[in-house]
């Protein structure tokens, strides 16, 4: 992540959280936190507790974040490894866990138009043994026909979306309930994974078996030894291949019909 990306990210984050930007220049951002963000980021529960007890005037803090090391001003240097950035990443995820949006279409004749309901999920798959990697998936499920679309998020980025239903739009009632929609997408993920190459997991199991073999030799059948059990369990934790799916965020999207006719080949 480049330093300019980080700057832009921070800027968007604070603006999206209704913070006022007090000063901005390339590589520097000075923001006035809201009460909510102060509580979210500044880790001073005692102050806020005290304030609520005494009824004083809340004074949320300001933050100066520097993304260009050459700037000689007081502030926190934020880079890709900075704890502050990762705190803000996590905060973003927490604050943006689920959403409902409507597609906004400019109609010239004040014509009413239908919007179809979609369930969209952004999913992070973790493949873990003694190594780890991720795969991100963005799936959309058409809650009328059951069609599934891949790369759903990028599709959404091309649309004008609004949190309130537009004046001339009306929504079509879903046939698939969100709850069963979630189940269906879970099934899709499983199906996708079943098609993947599992060599990594097989190799991890071989490494595991080989270390387990050495361990057995070392204890020479003396498997009652407590140390043997400790080591054996440690090997399982080190090597056992697992795949986990975590939903980053998701929501209900009411969209102009059309995309469901080019579904993802499942």
């Amino acid at each position: 992540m480049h330093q300019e990306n980080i700057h832009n990210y921070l800027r968007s984050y604070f603006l999206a959280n209704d913070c006022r930007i007090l000063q901005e220049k390339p590589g520097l951002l000075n923001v006035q936190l809201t009460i909510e963000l102060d509580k979210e980021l500044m880790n001073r529960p005692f102050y806020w507790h005290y304030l609520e007890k005494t009824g004083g005037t809340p004074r949320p803090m300001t933050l100066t974040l520097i993304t260009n090391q050459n700037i000689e001003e007081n502030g926190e240097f934020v880079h890709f490894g900075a704890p502050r950035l990762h705190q803000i990443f996590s905060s973003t995820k927490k604050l943006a866990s689920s959403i409902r949006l409507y597609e906004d279409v400019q109609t010239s004749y004040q014509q009413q138009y239908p919007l179809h309901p979609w369930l969209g999920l952004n999913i992070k798959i973790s493949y873990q043994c003694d190594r780890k990697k991720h795969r991100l998936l963005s799936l959309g499920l058409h809650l009328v026909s059951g069609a599934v679309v891949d790369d759903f998020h990028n599709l959404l980025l091309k649309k004008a979306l609004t949190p309130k239903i537009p004046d001339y739009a009306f929504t079509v009632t879903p046939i698939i309930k969100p709850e069963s929609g979630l189940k269906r997408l879970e099934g899709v993920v499983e199906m996708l994974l079943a098609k993947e190459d599992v060599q990594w997991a097989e190799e991890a199991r071989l490494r595991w078996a080989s270390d387990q073999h050495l361990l057995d030799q070392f204890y020479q059948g003396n498997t009652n030894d407590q140390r043997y059990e400790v080591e054996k369990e440690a090997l399982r934790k080190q090597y056992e291949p697992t795949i986990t799916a975590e939903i980053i965020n998701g929501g209900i999207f009411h969209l102009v019909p059309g995309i469901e006719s080019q579904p993802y080949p499942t």
Partner: protein
Amino acid sequence: MLKTELQFNQEWTNHFLKQIDEDGPWANWELFKLAIEAENHRAIPSFTGLQAPSHLPHLTPHPYQLEAARRVVEDMNGKAILADEVGLGKTIEAGLIIKEYMIRGLVKKVLILVPASLVSQWAIELNTKFYIPAVVQRKSYVWDQCDVVVSSIDTAKREPHRSIVYEQQYDMVIIDEAHRLKNSRTKNYEFVQHLPKKFCLLLTATPVQNRLDEVFNLVSLLKPGHLGSFENFEKDYKGKEKNPEDEERLRTLIQKVMVRNRREDTGMDWPERIVKTIPITFSPEEEDLYRSVEALKKEPISTRSQFSIITLLREICSSREAAYMTLKKMLEKEALDEVTRAFIHSLIKKIEGVSTNSKAQKALELIQSIEGKVIIFTEYRATQLYLQWFLKEHGITSVPFRGGFKRGKKDWMRELFKNHAKVLIATEAGGEGINLQFCQHVINYDLPWNPMRIEQRIGRIHRLGQEGDVHIYNFATKHTVEEHILTLLYEKIQLFESVIGQLDEILTRLGMRDIEKHISDILLHSESEGEIRIKMDNMKELINYQKEDSDASRKYS
């Protein structure tokens, strides 16, 4: 083929369904998009390669350090002995590896066990260089509440800590100065052996200090069975003729779990080591004292055996104070016959007659001629105290340094030396684990007989961050045991200039790990100077022969 099970986390699902029921509150679209952007940056696309460097813009690791980290993660599955020579930055390698696993979400809880004197240094380095929130274990609750804990092994192994430590589910265990765990019968070894080690790093600059079974113990701690069971190891490698094939096999096995960088392999320009021998001439009183002890070798065994002659001789070369302490301790022993007691008294009388210390005098002159800071290493506490007093008499400020100092005190003494004093006087045990690269001069006031210890000393200053050349002054009193050691052993094998890792190998191969004992035997059991010289020459030849051999094979590898 076994199926790898997929686990879906349900937490989000439940929350989402509740929000649908309650019709919100819903997130804002901007933040929603940002969350995806953040995940795109955080997601790790591949099992291989290092993520850590992109998280550490302030750190510029050397290529060999990055390669070490990569090898540990990719080739050694996260269990390794990091055995770079002193001063090459094993801590940086360890930090890179911890960071890599933390970024990948494979490691959350880390236990770092280090000598007490290094606890705060480790915590500071991990926090400032790696943004790893390592916490020094000072209160009991730290074990439970902090994910990355730095502690001394002596604290951790004691109750009530021990039980709490065992309750934690550590993903990674790091042990610094791990050569201290070479003996499998110690409490420390047993403590570490019972720790679950999903990932584990053992750090040591001297992986094979003495014997083969020590390597066995270290490797077995990391990866039990890698060198077979103890019985098989004994059978295969010990007590029989050295078989080159067996040795090669062992070497290959060890290399699978060990990263060992040597200065010369790093491809970097290291500051030079400039070594000078400073001969010392005894004053007549000192000479007389020395010869009286030496003459004991000719006494009948009953008298002779009461004295540790070699120790006394070495002490006299250091300071009369050091010798005095030993004699005083002997007098305190009850079972001492009259002859011996009388002899000790006569020696003490001679000590009292010694009015100067020729070596200290020489050290003073040298220190006065040096512009920068100087470290003096001595083997004896009494000498350390004496030198401090002596230098003060001549207006030179010095700071003492010992292994026994508490962690805080060591850091404090280092700062004092850096900012306020000209000289640091360290005893042997103090050498480990402090970094003094701001200093360029080392006086080996008396020489340890184990060459590995010399390297530990020099490594304090000849390390990453040292910008100038390193000057090493070896003091040796003429016509004494010191001269034998220095001229016949150290100089001829060019120990100071050459690289210790090599010597380590050579001595192992020769079965001479316990070189101190060999020398001691030669000195004690030789009838004449000539015999000592011949025997020492023999030893030297043997070592040099092996060294050329190893130089040659290195060229081809």
